[in-house]
């Protein structure tokens, strides 16, 4: 446990009388990339603000590399990319980054190299007022790279980015992780983070309902595979009856089966002969998985 960069233990948070986080446990090891998923209002941003010491912790405790949230040590060791990041419009990208570098202390970083790294070298001396949302997001990323953070907290980092920028974003996240930074990425869209993270934690209404690798989550969810059988014209009703599936239209039938019964089912359908023209298999999609874990009544 001690070598985890970020440890959250049974964290609670109240907003007025409503509890927005309940007994949340989460650990992130150095170099690990963890996705924090949940619908809007699930409590992702609130949890991040608690880690940063921007809002009080009403129960449980949080340790950032051994330090308390909001302490000088913790602030020096964390990097943060806020949800829809913003800066002072009158400053230029370079001036804003220089200010952050001076506030962070430590070695003078190469500001130009950093701005180049996030693809802002053309706009370094332009005022931030002229930046697009994507460019502000890039500037936000550049300040995450200042210093050598032990913990990086990225709140919806892909919002406002085009697909190419997303690739850049993940290259940067991977670079951070490779240097031993524990990275926590909050997102409401699973597809954004699936392939790029080591572990996925899902928050539903302030309760952590899942925390595992993507492979294990899929396995444990036991979601069915969808089969779509394309049949010869006019045979759909007959095949639907024979397979126990549902007629979609005159030429196709759909049915669901568990992952472990897939082959058996395929053999049975193949044996039906020429009536079956084709079979399409769709394994459970990530969105289904996400929906499964964030569904009401699931704990």
């Amino acid at each position: 446990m001690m070598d985890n960069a970020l440890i959250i233990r049974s964290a609670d948070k109240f907003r007025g009388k409503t509890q927005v986080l309940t007994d949340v446990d989460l650990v992130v090891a150095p170099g690990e990339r963890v996705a924090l998923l949940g619908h809007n209002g699930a409590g992702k941003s609130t949890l991040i603000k608690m880690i940063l010491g921007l809002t009080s912790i009403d129960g449980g405790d949080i340790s950032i590399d051994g330090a308390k949230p909001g302490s000088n040590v913790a602030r020096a060791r964390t990097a943060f990319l806020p949800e829809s990041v913003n800066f002072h419009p009158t400053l230029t990208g370079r001036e804003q980054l220089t200010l952050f570098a001076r506030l962070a202390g430590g070695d003078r970083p190469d500001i130009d190299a950093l701005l180049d790294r996030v693809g802002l070298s053309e706009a370094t001396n332009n005022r931030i007022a002229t930046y697009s949302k994507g460019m502000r997001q890039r500037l936000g990323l550049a300040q995450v790279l200042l210093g050598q953070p032990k913990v990086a907290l990225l709140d919806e980092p892909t919002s406002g980015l085009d697909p190419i920028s997303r690739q850049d974003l993940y290259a940067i996240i991977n670079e951070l992780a490779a240097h031993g930074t524990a990275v926590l990425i909050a997102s409401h869209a699973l597809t954004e983070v699936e392939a790029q993270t080591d572990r996925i934690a899902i928050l539903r209404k302030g309760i952590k309902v899942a925390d595992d690798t993507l492979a294990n989550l899929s396995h444990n969810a036991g979601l069915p595979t969808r089969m779509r059988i394309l049949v010869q014209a006019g045979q759909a009703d007959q095949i639907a009856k024979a397979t126990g599936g549902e007629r979609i239209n005159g030429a196709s039938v759909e049915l669901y089966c568990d992952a472990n019964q897939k082959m058996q089912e395929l053999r049975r359908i193949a044996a039906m002969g020429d009536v079956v023209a084709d079979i399409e298999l769709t394994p459970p999609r990530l969105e289904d998985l996400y929906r499964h874990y964030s569904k009401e009544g699931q704990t």
Partner: protein
Amino acid sequence: MIARIFALARAEMLILRRNWWLMMATGIMMLFALALTFAGSAPTGTLGVDMLTISVSSMTTLAVYLAPLLALMMSFDAIAGERDRGTLSLLLTYPAGRGEILMGKFLAQVTALGIATALGLGSAGIVAALYGGASPESLIALSRLIATATLLGAVFVALGYGLSALAKSPAAAAGLAAGLWLVFVVLFDLGLLGAVVMDGGGIFTQKIFPWVMVANPADAFRVWNIAASEGVALASGMGGAAKTLPNWAAPVSLLLWPLLAFVSARAVFRRVEP
């Protein structure tokens, strides 16, 4: 800590320069100071003081209104604006403490105000001196005016931070700032005047009134400038109340206020959740 405060102050100064605030404040100060200096130049001969003295006296009255106004215009947005733009949360995750953030802004904004005051009132003073004469005494009075006007501005810069931290939005902060200005600069004196008239020269007027008056930084500023220079007192025609107070009263009040205002602004800012 010092390095962080200076980094913040430098960025703030850049913003004040770039958004024309510094130019505008200097221009406004200069315009009003020149206008008043020439409007008030008529009675020079009768009082037997040089024109710079008259000018300092009119500019004292001007600065009572203008320095707090400019200070609040600059400071009301400091925290509310950052929170509104969403820049505050990121700033607060850096190792700079809230007191440091406030101090960085304070240094820059008070410096800007000092520059605007020195250029604005100073140039009007020089014009007055060239036009109608000056003396070592009136030059000292001018320097005192510039220094104390900046100090008065510092009080309201810090008070502005306090209400900027209290307000839920920049618009609310602007409203609070207008109210604060009205209370300190206009209503307070009106209230005192009313009390003095009602009292009719009794105990309140003689013993309590001067102290209550000097507790207001705007009046402390006025009293300091008037009491320190006989010529200015003569020209302003209101040395009366100032005379009953010990010499240290006004300077102590005007020096304590920025400190108290800053400390309370920091206390309010500490409780702000971005």
